[in-house]
């Protein structure tokens, strides 16, 4: 973890701790800081290796390098690698990857990770994508254990208005701009609501696009923190949800919230993990990542409301098929 940075990765830990406690187990959460700078990669790995948690009967490890903590009875709920040395190797924001030094570090890291992964009695992941990476990079078999919402019961299809909603951080890689640009191409009165806090430069850019395309009456940009009640209210009343990130690891909490509220999800072919939940035409639409294709899907959602509702209901059923619930998680993780 990084001190004072909160997000999905901490939620999954806190929620699991709460659920385990509710199931009558005694739980302690250990959060240790980590930075992924190459110069201190192995120093920190050594530190984690020296952590003594033998007083616990079972250890559940999440983010790297937590899986290096030694324990006789350790399971991993692996949610990502140290990505710059794995799936983001050579990515544009790490331009100097291919030096002898970094290649050597990478090889040593993979060897150490392989050893630590091998110590675990079972390896779970949060998505097919992460499981595939473990197989590809580490030759390790794993079981997908989808992270549930903490309390999905508030999500219900209260009504189906004319809004497509996207509730998540406003960031370039979440690509709310694609949705705004798509709105300019729609031919129906469908509306778009974007909710979330985010990068101020990106929010300005979104605001400018909305102004330039004269969409102010059909696009609502609510750039602030909204609490759970407000979020539930927006999702429960919408027509459908949109979640169009660029190459994410998992289906994302917004897709799951929509599914619990029996709402169809609009996503893109390059979104990464969303298609693990969404099948095109069954419980949502998977469009090409272009404004035109997204606009077409938005119009269809608006026009064929019977189908949209049916896809929403199918999405709720999909959650059950994938066993995205805490009882399943706890049964598997303590097995």
């Amino acid at each position: 973890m990084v001190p004072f940075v909160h997000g999905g990765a901490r939620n999954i830990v806190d929620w699991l701790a709460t659920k385990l406690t509710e199931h009558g187990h005694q739980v302690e959460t250990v959060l240790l800081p980590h930075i992924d700078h190459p110069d201190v990669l192995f120093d920190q790995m050594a530190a984690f290796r020296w952590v003594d948690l033998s007083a616990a009967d079972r250890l559940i490890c999440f983010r790297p390098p937590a899986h290096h903590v030694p324990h006789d009875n350790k399971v991993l709920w692996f949610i990502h690698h140290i990505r710059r040395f794995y799936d983001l190797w050579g990515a544009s924001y790490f331009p100097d990857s291919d030096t002898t030094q970094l290649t050597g570090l990478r090889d040593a890291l993979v060897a150490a990770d392989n050893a630590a992964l091998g110590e675990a009695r079972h390896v779970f992941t949060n998505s097919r994508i992460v499981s595939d990476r473990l197989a590809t990079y580490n030759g390790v078999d794993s079981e997908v254990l989808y992270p549930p919402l903490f309390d999905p019961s508030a999500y219900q299809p209260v009504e189906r208005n004319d809004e497509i909603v996207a509730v998540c951080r406003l960031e370039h890689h979440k690509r709310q701009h694609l949705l705004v640009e798509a709105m300019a191409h729609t031919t129906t009165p469908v509306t778009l609501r974007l909710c979330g806090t985010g990068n101020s430069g990106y929010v300005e850019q979104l605001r400018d696009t909305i102004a330039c395309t004269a969409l102010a009456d059909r696009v609502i940009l609510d750039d602030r923190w909204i609490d759970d009640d407000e979020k539930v209210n927006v999702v429960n009343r919408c027509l459908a949800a949109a979640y169009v990130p660029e190459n994410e690891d998992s289906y994302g909490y917004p897709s799951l919230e929509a599914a619990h509220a029996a709402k169809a999800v609009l996503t893109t072919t390059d979104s990464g993990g969303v298609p693990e939940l969404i099948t095109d035409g069954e419980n949502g639409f998977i469009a090409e990542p272009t404004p035109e294709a997204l606009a077409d899907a938005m119009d269809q959602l608006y026009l064929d409301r019977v189908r949209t509702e049916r896809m929403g209901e199918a999405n709720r059923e999909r959650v059950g098929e994938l066993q995205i619930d805490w009882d399943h998680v706890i049964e598997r993780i303590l097995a």
Partner: protein
Amino acid sequence: MNVLIVNNMAPFVWGGAEELAVHLKRNLELADVSAEILRIPFQWEPTAGITAQMLLCRRLELTNVDRVIALKFPAYLIRHHEKVIWCLHQFRQAYDMFDPAAPDPAMVANDAELLRAIATADAEAFGEAKAIFTNSPVTADRLRRFNSIDGQVLYPPVNDPERFGGGEAEGYIFAGGRVNSMKRQHLLLEALAFTPPSVRLVIAGPPEGASTADDLAARAEELGVADRVTLDLRLLDRDELAEWVNGASACAYLPRDEDSLGYVAMEAATAGKALITTADAGGVLGLVDPGVTGWVTEPSPEALAEAMAASAADPRATRRRGLAARERWNAFDITWPRTVERLLA
């Protein structure tokens, strides 16, 4: 400003230091500072693992933190350019609890090398700290004696003073805190036997040791005071505890040579209750001025009985001593706002 409180943790163990960290966080937030607690696992047995765990603390990388407030060994070994140490205690087994004439068998295997490593690490950690505070004069004295380091005394405040507003005396002497032989609740029972039948006693707190609770109950029967004593031997929640304190006529606390003022005495004084203690109680004596804020007696049943009887005999005088105890406590100016201010200076 992001302030990281750094403390040790042992899985499934919760005590005074953990409680202090939580209240420090809460009070930092009340001062509009964002605060988080980092709990670094530490197991001091087997001792062969201590060096590695010292290195573990040393090797952790912190980002996004403007100030560290570190509380214990080895957590305070963590590196940070704005580190303040509020030392609750060092690794006492290496210092004042280490007796070369009668070495702890657990320490023998590790010889002088481990002790030297601990002293060296301490010197380095304290040397790089921006400020050094200790929780009591005793801790400060040890730091000076063993490490030649000066620390300023910064007493931990009462965590929840708002609960201890005081109240009408309901005619009992209250003895709170952990129940064990060092806190000498048995001495109070023995004293009770020497007091007039109108004197009543309440002992409440978590018993330590398997037979402590049964032993006390049996002793009360044996002494014939069972009908005048209430034994509420469990971990009380804070509201229950405060209710006992607020309704007491006086509070008794007899630890053997305590390091600090002691939460039990601090809470009693906050509630405006007169204090009964013994001359060998250590830090507690800082709050008890005999004849003014309470009674200080020899640690014998007879002497204690005299004080207990006196506190019951003249409720108005006892009330006056209680108010004086509160005044004495307030004069220390040990409050969370003041504490936070000093830690952030």
